Protein backbone atom coordinates (compact mmCIF):
# COMPACT_ATOMS: atom_id res chain seq x y z
CA UNK A 1 0.00 0.00 0.00
CA UNK A 2 1.51 3.35 -0.90
CA UNK A 3 2.08 6.16 1.60
CA UNK A 4 -0.92 8.23 0.44
CA UNK A 5 -3.45 5.45 1.07
CA UNK A 6 -1.80 4.59 4.40
CA UNK A 7 -2.13 8.22 5.53
CA UNK A 8 -5.74 8.30 4.30
CA UNK A 9 -6.80 5.20 6.26
CA UNK A 10 -4.79 6.26 9.30
CA UNK A 11 -6.61 9.63 9.24
CA UNK A 12 -9.99 7.89 8.99
CA UNK A 13 -9.04 5.67 11.96
CA UNK A 14 -7.92 8.64 14.04
CA UNK A 15 -11.08 10.58 13.20
CA UNK A 16 -13.23 7.58 14.17
CA UNK A 17 -11.43 7.34 17.51
CA UNK A 18 -11.96 11.08 17.95
CA UNK A 19 -15.69 10.64 17.28
CA UNK A 20 -15.85 7.72 19.76
CA UNK A 21 -14.15 9.89 22.36
CA UNK A 22 -16.76 12.60 21.70
CA UNK A 23 -19.59 10.17 22.56
CA UNK A 24 -17.72 8.81 25.57
CA UNK A 25 -16.79 12.21 27.03
CA UNK A 26 -20.11 13.79 26.07
CA UNK A 27 -22.10 11.17 27.95
CA UNK A 28 -20.18 11.59 31.21
CA UNK A 29 -20.48 14.49 33.67
CA UNK A 30 -19.40 17.22 34.10
CA UNK A 31 -21.68 18.78 31.50
CA UNK A 32 -20.52 22.13 30.15
CA UNK A 33 -23.95 23.76 29.73
CA UNK A 34 -22.73 27.34 29.95
CA UNK A 35 -20.04 26.86 27.31
CA UNK A 36 -22.49 24.90 25.12
CA UNK A 37 -24.99 27.78 25.17
CA UNK A 38 -22.21 30.25 24.44
CA UNK A 39 -21.04 28.17 21.47
CA UNK A 40 -24.61 27.74 20.16
CA UNK A 41 -25.12 31.50 20.26
CA UNK A 42 -21.70 32.21 18.75
CA UNK A 43 -21.94 29.60 15.98
CA UNK A 44 -25.58 30.31 15.12
CA UNK A 45 -25.27 34.07 15.31
CA UNK A 46 -22.01 34.15 13.36
CA UNK A 47 -23.41 32.08 10.48
CA UNK A 48 -26.90 33.57 10.20
CA UNK A 49 -26.11 36.65 8.03
CA UNK A 50 -24.10 34.65 5.48
CA UNK A 51 -26.52 31.71 5.42
CA UNK A 52 -29.47 34.12 5.09
CA UNK A 53 -27.88 36.08 2.26
CA UNK A 54 -26.86 33.00 0.27
CA UNK A 55 -30.32 31.50 0.85
CA UNK A 56 -32.04 34.65 -0.42
CA UNK A 57 -29.84 34.84 -3.52
CA UNK A 58 -30.32 31.12 -4.16
CA UNK A 59 -34.13 31.41 -4.11
CA UNK A 60 -34.14 34.49 -6.32
CA UNK A 61 -31.62 33.18 -8.86
CA UNK A 62 -33.18 29.73 -9.08
CA UNK A 63 -36.57 31.30 -9.82
CA UNK A 64 -35.17 33.64 -12.46
CA UNK A 65 -33.18 30.82 -14.13
CA UNK A 66 -36.06 28.34 -14.15
CA UNK A 67 -38.70 30.73 -15.47
CA UNK A 68 -37.84 30.59 -19.23
CA UNK A 69 -37.92 26.77 -19.33
CA UNK A 70 -41.07 26.57 -17.25
CA UNK A 71 -42.69 29.17 -19.55
CA UNK A 72 -41.57 27.17 -22.60
CA UNK A 73 -43.52 24.15 -21.36
CA UNK A 74 -46.43 26.33 -20.25
CA UNK A 75 -46.13 25.51 -16.56
CA UNK A 76 -44.93 28.89 -15.34
CA UNK A 77 -47.58 28.81 -12.63
CA UNK A 78 -45.81 25.80 -11.07
CA UNK A 79 -42.64 27.82 -10.47
CA UNK A 80 -43.18 28.17 -6.66
CA UNK A 81 -43.84 24.40 -6.36
CA UNK A 82 -40.72 23.50 -8.30
CA UNK A 83 -38.41 25.91 -6.47
CA UNK A 84 -39.87 24.96 -3.06
CA UNK A 85 -39.30 21.23 -3.59
CA UNK A 86 -35.79 21.79 -4.95
CA UNK A 87 -34.84 24.06 -2.06
CA UNK A 88 -36.42 22.13 0.80
CA UNK A 89 -35.38 18.65 -0.34
CA UNK A 90 -31.87 19.19 -1.57
CA UNK A 91 -30.37 22.54 -2.43
CA UNK A 92 -31.24 24.31 0.84
CA UNK A 93 -29.75 21.76 3.26
CA UNK A 94 -26.64 21.07 1.14
CA UNK A 95 -25.87 24.69 0.28
CA UNK A 96 -26.46 25.85 3.86
CA UNK A 97 -24.23 23.05 5.13
CA UNK A 98 -21.48 24.01 2.66
CA UNK A 99 -21.64 27.69 3.63
CA UNK A 100 -21.71 26.64 7.29
CA UNK A 101 -18.68 24.39 6.74
CA UNK A 102 -16.77 27.22 5.06
CA UNK A 103 -17.54 29.60 7.87
CA UNK A 104 -17.57 27.45 10.99
CA UNK A 105 -15.36 24.44 10.30
CA UNK A 106 -12.45 26.69 9.30
CA UNK A 107 -13.10 28.98 12.26
CA UNK A 108 -13.11 26.08 14.74
CA UNK A 109 -10.05 24.53 13.05
CA UNK A 110 -8.12 27.81 13.28
CA UNK A 111 -9.27 28.61 16.83
CA UNK A 112 -8.42 25.20 18.30
CA UNK A 113 -5.26 24.97 16.16
CA UNK A 114 -4.05 28.29 17.47
CA UNK A 115 -4.91 27.22 21.04
CA UNK A 116 -2.94 24.01 20.51
CA UNK A 117 0.23 25.62 19.16
CA UNK A 118 0.24 28.38 21.81
CA UNK A 119 -0.18 25.75 24.58
CA UNK A 120 -3.60 27.12 25.64
CA UNK A 121 -5.08 23.62 25.45
CA UNK A 122 -2.24 22.29 27.64
CA UNK A 123 -2.83 25.20 30.04
CA UNK A 124 -6.48 24.21 30.31
CA UNK A 125 -5.51 20.60 30.95
CA UNK A 126 -2.96 21.41 33.65
CA UNK A 127 -5.48 23.64 35.40
CA UNK A 128 -7.60 20.51 35.92
CA UNK A 129 -10.13 21.23 33.15
CA UNK A 130 -10.83 18.55 30.55
CA UNK A 131 -10.15 20.49 27.30
CA UNK A 132 -11.81 17.82 25.16
CA UNK A 133 -15.06 18.18 27.05
CA UNK A 134 -14.86 21.96 27.30
CA UNK A 135 -13.69 22.76 23.76
CA UNK A 136 -14.57 19.81 21.54
CA UNK A 137 -17.79 18.30 22.92
CA UNK A 138 -19.48 21.70 23.25
CA UNK A 139 -18.54 22.77 19.71
CA UNK A 140 -19.65 19.52 18.06
CA UNK A 141 -23.01 19.58 19.87
CA UNK A 142 -23.43 23.26 18.99
CA UNK A 143 -22.82 22.69 15.26
CA UNK A 144 -25.11 19.62 15.31
CA UNK A 145 -27.95 21.65 16.84
CA UNK A 146 -27.43 24.92 15.01
CA UNK A 147 -27.21 23.71 11.40
CA UNK A 148 -30.80 22.33 11.29
CA UNK A 149 -32.11 25.63 12.69
CA UNK A 150 -30.05 27.62 10.21
CA UNK A 151 -31.28 25.38 7.38
CA UNK A 152 -34.93 26.04 8.31
CA UNK A 153 -34.26 29.78 8.38
CA UNK A 154 -32.31 29.61 5.13
CA UNK A 155 -35.14 27.67 3.43
CA UNK A 156 -37.67 30.27 4.57
CA UNK A 157 -35.47 33.13 3.31
CA UNK A 158 -34.89 31.28 0.00
CA UNK A 159 -38.63 30.93 -0.48
CA UNK A 160 -39.01 34.65 0.16
CA UNK A 161 -36.36 35.22 -2.54
CA UNK A 162 -38.40 32.95 -4.79
CA UNK A 163 -41.53 34.99 -4.02
CA UNK A 164 -39.74 38.19 -5.08
CA UNK A 165 -38.41 36.38 -8.19
CA UNK A 166 -41.89 35.27 -9.18
CA UNK A 167 -43.15 38.83 -8.75
CA UNK A 168 -40.57 40.28 -11.13
CA UNK A 169 -42.74 39.23 -14.09
CA UNK A 170 -46.04 38.19 -12.49
CA UNK A 171 -48.16 39.48 -9.69
CA UNK A 172 -48.71 36.82 -7.04
CA UNK A 173 -49.92 37.63 -3.53
CA UNK A 174 -47.85 36.48 -0.56
CA UNK A 175 -50.71 34.32 0.75
CA UNK A 176 -51.29 32.62 -2.59
CA UNK A 177 -47.56 31.99 -3.07
CA UNK A 178 -47.18 30.32 0.31
CA UNK A 179 -50.38 28.30 -0.05
CA UNK A 180 -49.03 26.97 -3.34
CA UNK A 181 -45.64 26.17 -1.74
CA UNK A 182 -47.16 24.29 1.21
CA UNK A 183 -49.56 22.40 -1.06
CA UNK A 184 -46.59 21.19 -3.10
CA UNK A 185 -44.56 20.06 -0.08
CA UNK A 186 -45.21 16.90 1.90
CA UNK A 187 -43.68 15.57 5.11
CA UNK A 188 -41.54 13.16 3.09
CA UNK A 189 -39.91 16.23 1.51
CA UNK A 190 -39.28 18.04 4.76
CA UNK A 191 -38.45 15.41 7.40
CA UNK A 192 -35.58 13.47 5.71
CA UNK A 193 -34.03 16.75 4.57
CA UNK A 194 -34.28 18.12 8.10
CA UNK A 195 -32.84 14.97 9.71
CA UNK A 196 -29.82 14.86 7.43
CA UNK A 197 -28.82 18.38 8.48
CA UNK A 198 -28.07 17.04 12.00
CA UNK A 199 -25.52 14.69 10.42
CA UNK A 200 -24.10 17.52 8.29
CA UNK A 201 -23.74 19.67 11.42
CA UNK A 202 -22.07 16.84 13.30
CA UNK A 203 -19.60 16.31 10.43
CA UNK A 204 -18.74 20.03 10.27
CA UNK A 205 -18.09 20.21 14.03
CA UNK A 206 -16.24 16.90 14.18
CA UNK A 207 -13.86 17.69 11.32
CA UNK A 208 -13.20 21.27 12.49
CA UNK A 209 -12.45 20.13 16.03
CA UNK A 210 -10.37 17.12 14.92
CA UNK A 211 -8.20 19.21 12.60
CA UNK A 212 -7.73 22.02 15.11
CA UNK A 213 -7.17 19.78 18.13
CA UNK A 214 -4.42 17.88 16.32
CA UNK A 215 -2.81 20.92 14.77
CA UNK A 216 0.99 20.84 14.62
CA UNK A 217 3.98 22.72 13.30
CA UNK A 218 3.19 26.26 14.49
CA UNK A 219 1.30 28.89 12.56
CA UNK A 220 1.71 27.01 9.28
CA UNK A 221 -0.07 24.08 10.89
CA UNK A 222 -2.94 26.32 12.00
CA UNK A 223 -3.51 27.49 8.42
CA UNK A 224 -3.35 23.93 7.17
CA UNK A 225 -5.83 22.78 9.83
CA UNK A 226 -8.33 25.50 8.91
CA UNK A 227 -7.99 24.76 5.21
CA UNK A 228 -8.27 20.99 5.45
CA UNK A 229 -11.19 21.32 7.88
CA UNK A 230 -13.21 23.07 5.14
CA UNK A 231 -12.16 20.64 2.41
CA UNK A 232 -12.81 17.46 4.41
CA UNK A 233 -16.09 18.64 5.95
CA UNK A 234 -17.40 19.77 2.53
CA UNK A 235 -16.51 16.39 1.08
CA UNK A 236 -18.17 14.63 4.01
CA UNK A 237 -21.36 16.64 3.45
CA UNK A 238 -21.63 15.32 -0.12
CA UNK A 239 -20.89 11.74 1.02
CA UNK A 240 -23.49 11.96 3.78
CA UNK A 241 -25.99 13.44 1.32
CA UNK A 242 -25.43 10.51 -1.00
CA UNK A 243 -25.96 8.06 1.86
CA UNK A 244 -29.08 9.94 3.02
CA UNK A 245 -30.61 9.77 -0.48
CA UNK A 246 -29.95 6.02 -0.66
CA UNK A 247 -31.44 5.45 2.79
CA UNK A 248 -34.61 7.44 2.07
CA UNK A 249 -34.89 5.62 -1.26
CA UNK A 250 -34.63 2.21 0.44
CA UNK A 251 -37.16 3.27 3.08
CA UNK A 252 -39.54 4.35 0.31
CA UNK A 253 -39.89 7.94 1.50
CA UNK A 254 -38.25 9.51 -1.50
Amino acid sequence: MNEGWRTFFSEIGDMTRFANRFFYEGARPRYEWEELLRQCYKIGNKSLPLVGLTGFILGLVLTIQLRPNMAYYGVESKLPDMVAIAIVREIGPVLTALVFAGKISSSIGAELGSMRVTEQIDAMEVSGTNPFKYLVVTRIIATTLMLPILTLLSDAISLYGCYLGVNIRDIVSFGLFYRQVFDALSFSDVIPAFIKTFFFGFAVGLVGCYKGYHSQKGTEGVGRSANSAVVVSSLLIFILDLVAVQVTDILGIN
Partner: protein
Amino acid sequence: MAMQVEESPSILKTKTASGEPVIAVSNVSIAFGNNQVLNNFNLILYKGENLAVLGKSGSGKSVLIKCIIGLLKPDEGDINVLGENVAALEQESLDALRVKIGFLFQSNALYDSMTVRENLEFPLRRHGVDLSQTEIDALVIEALENVGLRHTVNMMPVELSGGMRKRIALARTLILKPEIILYDEPTTGLDPITGKEISLLMVEIQKKYNTSSLIITHDMNCVRRTADRVAILLDGRCYAEGIFKDLEQSKDKAIKQFFE
Protein backbone atom coordinates in the same frame (compact mmCIF):
# COMPACT_ATOMS: atom_id res chain seq x y z
CA MET B 1 -0.34 46.72 46.49
CA ALA B 2 2.42 45.57 44.13
CA MET B 3 5.16 43.41 45.55
CA GLN B 4 8.62 44.80 46.18
CA VAL B 5 10.91 43.69 43.40
CA GLU B 6 14.14 45.41 44.45
CA GLU B 7 17.00 42.96 44.66
CA SER B 8 18.36 42.44 48.15
CA PRO B 9 21.07 40.11 49.52
CA SER B 10 18.41 38.04 51.27
CA ILE B 11 16.98 37.13 47.90
CA LEU B 12 20.21 35.47 46.83
CA LYS B 13 19.58 32.30 48.74
CA THR B 14 21.96 29.69 50.01
CA LYS B 15 19.45 27.39 51.67
CA THR B 16 20.21 23.70 51.18
CA ALA B 17 17.80 20.88 50.49
CA SER B 18 15.68 19.85 53.47
CA GLY B 19 12.11 19.06 54.49
CA GLU B 20 9.74 16.58 52.96
CA PRO B 21 9.84 15.83 49.22
CA VAL B 22 6.89 17.22 47.24
CA ILE B 23 8.09 15.92 43.87
CA ALA B 24 10.16 12.75 43.49
CA VAL B 25 11.26 11.74 40.00
CA SER B 26 12.72 8.22 40.04
CA ASN B 27 14.52 6.55 37.14
CA VAL B 28 12.39 8.27 34.52
CA SER B 29 13.10 7.51 30.87
CA ILE B 30 11.26 8.78 27.82
CA ALA B 31 12.10 8.60 24.14
CA PHE B 32 10.54 10.09 21.01
CA GLY B 33 11.33 7.65 18.21
CA ASN B 34 15.08 7.09 18.34
CA ASN B 35 15.69 10.21 20.41
CA GLN B 36 16.21 9.20 24.05
CA VAL B 37 15.31 12.45 25.84
CA LEU B 38 15.39 11.38 29.51
CA ASN B 39 17.42 8.37 30.56
CA ASN B 40 17.07 7.15 34.17
CA PHE B 41 16.52 10.69 35.39
CA ASN B 42 16.24 11.27 39.14
CA LEU B 43 15.27 14.43 40.99
CA ILE B 44 13.69 15.48 44.27
CA LEU B 45 12.00 18.81 45.01
CA TYR B 46 11.63 19.54 48.72
CA LYS B 47 8.86 21.52 50.33
CA GLY B 48 9.42 25.26 50.30
CA GLU B 49 12.47 25.31 48.02
CA ASN B 50 13.15 26.73 44.59
CA LEU B 51 14.93 24.14 42.47
CA ALA B 52 16.28 25.19 39.08
CA VAL B 53 16.91 22.61 36.36
CA LEU B 54 19.58 23.80 33.96
CA GLY B 55 20.06 22.27 30.56
CA LYS B 56 20.80 23.08 26.95
CA SER B 57 17.98 23.76 24.48
CA GLY B 58 16.39 20.48 23.47
CA SER B 59 17.89 18.61 26.42
CA GLY B 60 14.46 17.52 27.71
CA LYS B 61 13.78 20.12 30.42
CA SER B 62 10.26 20.91 29.19
CA VAL B 63 9.61 17.19 28.65
CA LEU B 64 10.51 16.64 32.30
CA ILE B 65 7.93 19.08 33.67
CA LYS B 66 5.31 17.89 31.20
CA CYS B 67 5.87 14.39 32.64
CA ILE B 68 5.55 15.77 36.17
CA ILE B 69 2.21 17.44 35.42
CA GLY B 70 0.96 14.37 33.52
CA LEU B 71 0.86 15.89 30.02
CA LEU B 72 3.36 13.24 28.89
CA LYS B 73 3.72 9.70 30.19
CA PRO B 74 7.26 8.42 30.77
CA ASP B 75 8.24 5.12 29.17
CA GLU B 76 9.80 3.98 32.44
CA GLY B 77 10.14 5.19 36.00
CA ASP B 78 7.89 6.81 38.60
CA ILE B 79 6.93 10.37 39.34
CA ASN B 80 5.43 11.08 42.75
CA VAL B 81 3.83 14.46 43.31
CA LEU B 82 2.53 15.29 46.81
CA GLY B 83 2.62 11.57 47.58
CA GLU B 84 0.71 10.43 44.49
CA ASN B 85 2.06 8.45 41.56
CA VAL B 86 1.12 10.63 38.58
CA ALA B 87 1.15 7.84 35.97
CA ALA B 88 -1.19 5.65 38.03
CA LEU B 89 -3.85 8.30 38.65
CA GLU B 90 -7.30 8.21 37.06
CA GLN B 91 -8.22 11.36 35.12
CA GLU B 92 -10.37 12.79 37.94
CA SER B 93 -7.67 12.25 40.57
CA LEU B 94 -5.09 13.71 38.21
CA ASP B 95 -7.28 16.80 37.69
CA ALA B 96 -7.64 17.16 41.47
CA LEU B 97 -3.86 16.92 41.88
CA ARG B 98 -3.28 19.45 39.12
CA VAL B 99 -5.28 22.05 41.06
CA LYS B 100 -2.49 21.95 43.66
CA ILE B 101 0.15 22.59 40.98
CA GLY B 102 0.63 25.85 39.12
CA PHE B 103 2.27 25.75 35.69
CA LEU B 104 3.76 28.84 34.05
CA PHE B 105 4.16 28.13 30.35
CA GLN B 106 7.03 29.46 28.30
CA SER B 107 4.50 30.96 25.87
CA ASN B 108 2.32 32.16 28.81
CA ALA B 109 -0.66 30.32 27.26
CA LEU B 110 -3.15 33.07 28.13
CA TYR B 111 -6.57 32.38 26.61
CA ASP B 112 -6.53 35.03 23.90
CA SER B 113 -10.30 35.07 23.41
CA MET B 114 -10.76 36.12 27.05
CA THR B 115 -9.97 39.35 28.92
CA VAL B 116 -7.41 39.36 31.72
CA ARG B 117 -10.25 39.14 34.24
CA GLU B 118 -11.79 36.14 32.45
CA ASN B 119 -8.37 34.47 32.22
CA LEU B 120 -7.99 34.75 35.99
CA GLU B 121 -11.60 33.84 36.72
CA PHE B 122 -11.43 30.69 34.58
CA PRO B 123 -9.60 28.43 37.09
CA LEU B 124 -11.71 29.83 39.94
CA ARG B 125 -14.97 29.13 38.15
CA ARG B 126 -13.82 25.62 37.29
CA HIS B 127 -12.71 24.73 40.80
CA GLY B 128 -14.00 27.35 43.25
CA VAL B 129 -17.64 26.25 42.97
CA ASP B 130 -18.62 27.75 46.33
CA LEU B 131 -17.25 31.20 45.62
CA SER B 132 -19.58 34.16 45.16
CA GLN B 133 -18.93 36.77 42.46
CA THR B 134 -17.70 39.20 45.14
CA GLU B 135 -15.18 36.64 46.39
CA ILE B 136 -14.05 35.87 42.84
CA ASP B 137 -13.59 39.60 42.14
CA ALA B 138 -11.54 39.99 45.33
CA LEU B 139 -9.28 37.06 44.41
CA VAL B 140 -8.77 38.39 40.88
CA ILE B 141 -7.81 41.82 42.19
CA GLU B 142 -5.49 40.29 44.81
CA ALA B 143 -3.75 38.18 42.14
CA LEU B 144 -3.34 41.19 39.87
CA GLU B 145 -2.02 43.34 42.72
CA ASN B 146 0.52 40.62 43.50
CA VAL B 147 2.01 41.14 40.05
CA GLY B 148 1.44 44.91 39.99
CA LEU B 149 -1.02 44.91 37.09
CA ARG B 150 -4.42 45.75 38.59
CA HIS B 151 -5.12 48.27 35.81
CA THR B 152 -5.05 45.58 33.11
CA VAL B 153 -8.12 43.76 34.46
CA ASN B 154 -10.34 44.50 31.45
CA MET B 155 -7.64 44.34 28.77
CA MET B 156 -7.20 41.56 26.22
CA PRO B 157 -3.91 39.57 26.24
CA VAL B 158 -3.05 40.89 22.78
CA GLU B 159 -2.94 44.45 24.22
CA LEU B 160 -0.23 43.55 26.74
CA SER B 161 3.56 43.57 26.40
CA GLY B 162 5.57 40.34 26.72
CA GLY B 163 6.53 41.11 30.33
CA MET B 164 2.95 42.00 31.26
CA ARG B 165 1.65 38.79 29.70
CA LYS B 166 4.19 36.83 31.75
CA ARG B 167 3.03 38.55 34.94
CA ILE B 168 -0.64 37.90 34.14
CA ALA B 169 0.18 34.25 33.43
CA LEU B 170 1.91 34.16 36.81
CA ALA B 171 -1.13 35.73 38.46
CA ARG B 172 -3.35 33.07 36.85
CA THR B 173 -0.97 30.36 38.06
CA LEU B 174 -1.19 31.73 41.60
CA ILE B 175 -4.91 32.30 41.82
CA LEU B 176 -5.72 28.80 43.11
CA LYS B 177 -2.91 29.11 45.69
CA PRO B 178 -0.94 26.09 44.44
CA GLU B 179 1.48 24.21 46.67
CA ILE B 180 3.92 23.67 43.81
CA ILE B 181 4.74 25.94 40.86
CA LEU B 182 6.41 24.64 37.72
CA TYR B 183 8.09 27.38 35.68
CA ASP B 184 8.93 26.58 32.05
CA GLU B 185 11.58 29.06 30.87
CA PRO B 186 10.04 31.99 32.80
CA THR B 187 12.43 34.64 31.49
CA THR B 188 13.01 33.45 27.92
CA GLY B 189 12.22 36.11 25.34
CA LEU B 190 12.18 38.95 27.88
CA ASP B 191 14.60 41.86 28.05
CA PRO B 192 17.14 41.69 30.94
CA ILE B 193 15.26 44.25 33.07
CA THR B 194 11.90 42.52 32.73
CA GLY B 195 13.60 39.14 33.17
CA LYS B 196 15.08 40.39 36.45
CA GLU B 197 11.68 41.68 37.60
CA ILE B 198 10.05 38.33 36.87
CA SER B 199 12.84 36.46 38.70
CA LEU B 200 12.47 38.62 41.79
CA LEU B 201 8.71 38.29 41.63
CA MET B 202 9.12 34.50 41.64
CA VAL B 203 11.18 34.71 44.82
CA GLU B 204 8.68 37.06 46.48
CA ILE B 205 5.84 34.70 45.60
CA GLN B 206 7.71 31.76 47.08
CA LYS B 207 8.24 33.73 50.28
CA LYS B 208 4.67 34.97 50.50
CA TYR B 209 2.87 31.68 49.76
CA ASN B 210 5.59 29.21 50.86
CA THR B 211 5.35 27.39 47.53
CA SER B 212 7.82 24.84 46.22
CA SER B 213 9.03 25.66 42.72
CA LEU B 214 10.70 23.79 39.93
CA ILE B 215 12.26 26.25 37.50
CA ILE B 216 13.26 25.03 34.06
CA THR B 217 15.61 27.51 32.47
CA HIS B 218 18.92 28.22 30.79
CA ASP B 219 19.01 31.84 31.97
CA MET B 220 21.86 31.95 34.51
CA ASN B 221 20.71 35.29 35.94
CA CYS B 222 17.30 33.80 36.66
CA VAL B 223 18.95 30.77 38.30
CA ARG B 224 21.24 32.96 40.42
CA ARG B 225 18.34 35.10 41.62
CA THR B 226 15.76 32.41 42.28
CA ALA B 227 17.29 29.02 42.96
CA ASP B 228 17.99 27.50 46.37
CA ARG B 229 19.38 24.47 44.59
CA VAL B 230 20.39 23.72 41.01
CA ALA B 231 20.26 20.47 39.03
CA ILE B 232 22.02 20.09 35.69
CA LEU B 233 20.30 17.98 33.05
CA LEU B 234 22.80 16.52 30.61
CA ASP B 235 22.37 13.60 28.18
CA GLY B 236 19.02 12.76 29.73
CA ARG B 237 20.42 12.36 33.25
CA CYS B 238 20.77 14.54 36.32
CA TYR B 239 24.48 15.20 35.83
CA ALA B 240 25.07 17.38 38.90
CA GLU B 241 23.15 18.88 41.77
CA GLY B 242 24.01 21.47 44.40
CA ILE B 243 23.82 25.10 45.38
CA PHE B 244 24.60 27.76 42.76
CA LYS B 245 27.93 28.87 44.27
CA ASP B 246 29.31 25.34 44.49
CA LEU B 247 28.38 24.52 40.92
CA GLU B 248 29.72 27.86 39.70
CA GLN B 249 33.14 27.02 41.16
CA SER B 250 33.17 23.46 39.82
CA LYS B 251 36.15 22.43 37.71
CA ASP B 252 34.09 19.89 35.75
CA LYS B 253 34.08 20.87 32.04
CA ALA B 254 30.46 19.92 31.47
CA ILE B 255 29.32 22.01 34.44
CA LYS B 256 31.64 24.92 33.67
CA GLN B 257 30.14 25.41 30.21
CA PHE B 258 26.86 26.54 31.82
CA PHE B 259 28.56 29.17 33.97
CA GLU B 260 30.97 30.66 31.42
